[in-house]
């Protein structure tokens, strides 16, 4: 076991980043659900796949198709997910419909006009081929013709609609694989923004955290223990969806003892009363999970959150010297650092801003990145030095 205070400090910081990243992900997902971002993004991608300037906007039209239209929860939302089956059904029907145009035929007396649509009785495959053939020449038309040719050709009766459906489904899935990467990329600026917001709201100054972990050995040790447990859960749940892995980590951390700190009269990092009230009003799963993450962070007794006695609020309320109030030399060193930080000054202000920026940027990397890093660091710590043999010691 490698017992290195620098490595342990890094492990502690990475655990904080990982837990806060879960919080950021939950907030982003909650916000995206509120503004129906995922559905809007999916609609944009579908319309882009099927864009044909020389014919119809088939993407727009398949969203009018009952298969997809009925998936909408209300008129202000789009479905978050469309199966390959639903996509290909809607697309085939939409194009087939172009071959079956309504006509109104006047009766002999000229008083009644009746709607007729003779093509409507043709088999779906025949109507689809006719629909494609009626399109203006375009890359999309050529693509559909190739799909048709690969599934039995353009002759009446030879066309395999089920084969076409499967092929269109695979084509859609390929696009969706790429789209999920694009979605993550699109979320990046939002993660960065929310990351910054979390860093400010919770006052998570990375530089301050690092110094405290270096000076406060009990806190470092209890946080490293939590980090090892979290890394163990991450490793044990490999291959499962991220949300399941986060849940396992939360459950593991719930069994860990509270954090330990050299500072006497330690208190909770944050008062979660207001947050709990907001979340219970919203009643969303993401909100409840977010409170759970905050609760786990609280129990680690980390030096973050807003307090009138701590920087930066102390710069305005007037700092109170703490170092002389203890006889414990370890605590005195830590309190000495707090006293210096709580004094207003350009240097302290600059360091606080840099610390917040580092946190905000780090949180935008996402929880999976930080848990993977944590696992590597914990493995290094475990593999560092062989434990001494007890027999030799005797």
């Amino acid at each position, binding site marked *: 076991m490698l017992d290195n205070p620098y490595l342990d400090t890094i492990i502690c910081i990475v655990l904080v980043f990982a837990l806060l990243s879960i919080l950021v992900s939950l907030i982003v997902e909650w916000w995206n659900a509120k503004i129906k971002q995922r559905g809007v993004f999916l609609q944009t991608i579908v319309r882009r796949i099927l864009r044909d300037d020389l014919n119809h906007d088939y993407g727009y039209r398949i969203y*009018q198709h009952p298969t997809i239209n009925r998936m909408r929860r209300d008129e202000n939302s789009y479905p978050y997910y469309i199966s390959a089956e639903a996509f290909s059904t809607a697309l085939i029907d939409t194009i087939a419909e172009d071959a079956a145009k309504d006509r109104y035929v006047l009766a002999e007396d000229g008083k009644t006009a009746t709607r007729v649509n003779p093509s409507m009785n043709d088999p779906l495959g025949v109507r689809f081929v006719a629909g494609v053939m009626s399109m203006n020449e375009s890359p999309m038309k050529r693509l559909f013709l190739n799909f048709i040719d690969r599934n039995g050709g353009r002759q009446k009766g030879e066309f395999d609609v089920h084969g076409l459906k499967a092929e269109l489904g695979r084509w859609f899935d390929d696009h969706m694989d790429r789209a999920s990467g694009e979605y993550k990329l699109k979320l990046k600026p939002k993660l960065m923004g929310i990351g910054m917001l979390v860093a400010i709201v919770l006052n998570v100054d990375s530089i301050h955290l690092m110094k405290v972990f270096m000076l406060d050995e009990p806190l470092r040790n209890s946080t490293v223990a939590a980090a090892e447990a979290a890394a163990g859960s991450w490793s044990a749940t490999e291959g499962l969806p991220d949300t399941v892995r986060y849940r396992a980590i939360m459950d593991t951390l719930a069994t860990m003892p509270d954090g330990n700190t050299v500072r006497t009269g330690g208190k909770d990092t944050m008062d979660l009363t207001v947050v709990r009230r907001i979340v219970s009003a919203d009643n969303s799963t993401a909100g409840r999970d977010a409170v759970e993450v905050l609760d786990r962070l609280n129990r680690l007794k980390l030096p973050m959150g807003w307090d009138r006695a701590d920087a930066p609020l102390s710069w305005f309320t007037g700092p109170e010297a703490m170092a002389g109030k203890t006889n414990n030399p370890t605590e005195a060193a830590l309190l000495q650092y707090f006293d210096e930080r709580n004094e207003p000054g350009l240097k302290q202000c600059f360091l606080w801003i840099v610390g917040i920026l580092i946190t905000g940027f780090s949180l935008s990397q996402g929880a999976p990145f930080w848990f993977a890093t944590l696992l590597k660091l914990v493995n290094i710590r475990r593999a560092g030095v062989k434990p001494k043999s007890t027999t030799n010691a005797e």
Partner: protein
Amino acid sequence: MSRITNAHTHIFTGKFAPDYFFKVALPKALHNWADEIKAMLESRGIRWLVRGISRTAGKSNMQRYLNFIETGMEESQGDVFAKLRGSYTALGSDTRFIVLTLNMDYMGLQRSSHPGIEDQLKEVEELRRDYPDTVFPFVCVDPRHKQGQALVDWVAPMHQDLRFFGIKMYPALGYFPCDPRLTELYAWAEANEVPIMTHCTRMGVFYTGRLREVVPNDSAPCLGTGDPANPVDPELDAINKRLNRFMYNDFTSGKGQSKYGCNLFLNPRNFIPVLNRFPKLKLCFAHFGGDDEIMGDPKEVRTKGIDTTNFHTEIKELMKKYPNVYTDISYTLFNDKEDVYQPIRASINDPVIGGRVLFGTDYYMTLQEAPEVQLWQLCQTKLQPVLFDKIAVTNTNAYLRSKFFPDPPGTRFV
């Protein structure tokens, strides 16, 4: 009482407008933000906000605008139509509606991701399937979309199948109505008595690009007379003089002034070469030139001598000269002043042109002024039953009649 027909309504939604549509309303400095503003207005949050505010009680200008924006942001044309129809059925009226589609695909030259005219028409056709005896759509044409015989080949089947009943034109979006690429269409429409509706007021949306992009020469593209001995229409000279006044005047040709520049395309006199060649063309100049033109409001293009035409007076002259030229009082009818209604009544009573004035409201553009119910009731009150029935029943039936649709009052669609 026979069924009335509202000859001028719109149900297209904002989705069919290009991404850069708001260039028409924004100052030049904000043109680069037009895409973002449209996307923002179409976002769920803003829609929710607009809906919430517009449904609160009150009749302020802001609420009317929000009501207009909310209708334009509806999810589908069916939703807009439901609101329109509801305004009449609530009072027990079984009104028919001429639904005018609008092709905005060429109102600028930038790329846009909006669904195009084909999708708009498709949606209207589906609506017609649900209300075959109520919805009478007109197809919007633009010579930059389809031209010549190809345009006729596109439009003719829609009319033969009684899916569409006329043609809509909107020259302010960047083309001259006398464009030679429309010659075949006019010939076909005249031969089959198919009605055409053209926008004709200095208000409304307009081409957002530079005028030079659509008028590369100092001579307007103009169809010929059809007479090999005298191929050039005599009106072309006047059109070109007006064109040059527009193109070389800072007020109209300068950057960001296309709003004024598009008066160039709108002028009813631009139709004279068309009407000289096709004198029996059934052509309706919408809005009767506009309430401001009826009242003779001073216009900058007029006071500066660039375009001295009064659209209202000009339309009346054309109606007197050509037997199938119509007009409608859509949008104009919102202005309850006698200065507006008195000339309208005089025109309806006129023995020569009185049979060619149509009732229409220009829904949902008019939501900026008043609710639909209020407008058609105002019109009924101002015109009294005899005149109202004449323009809303007799005249509109005559206008809708074509070789494909010979008996508008007698035919029932099932």
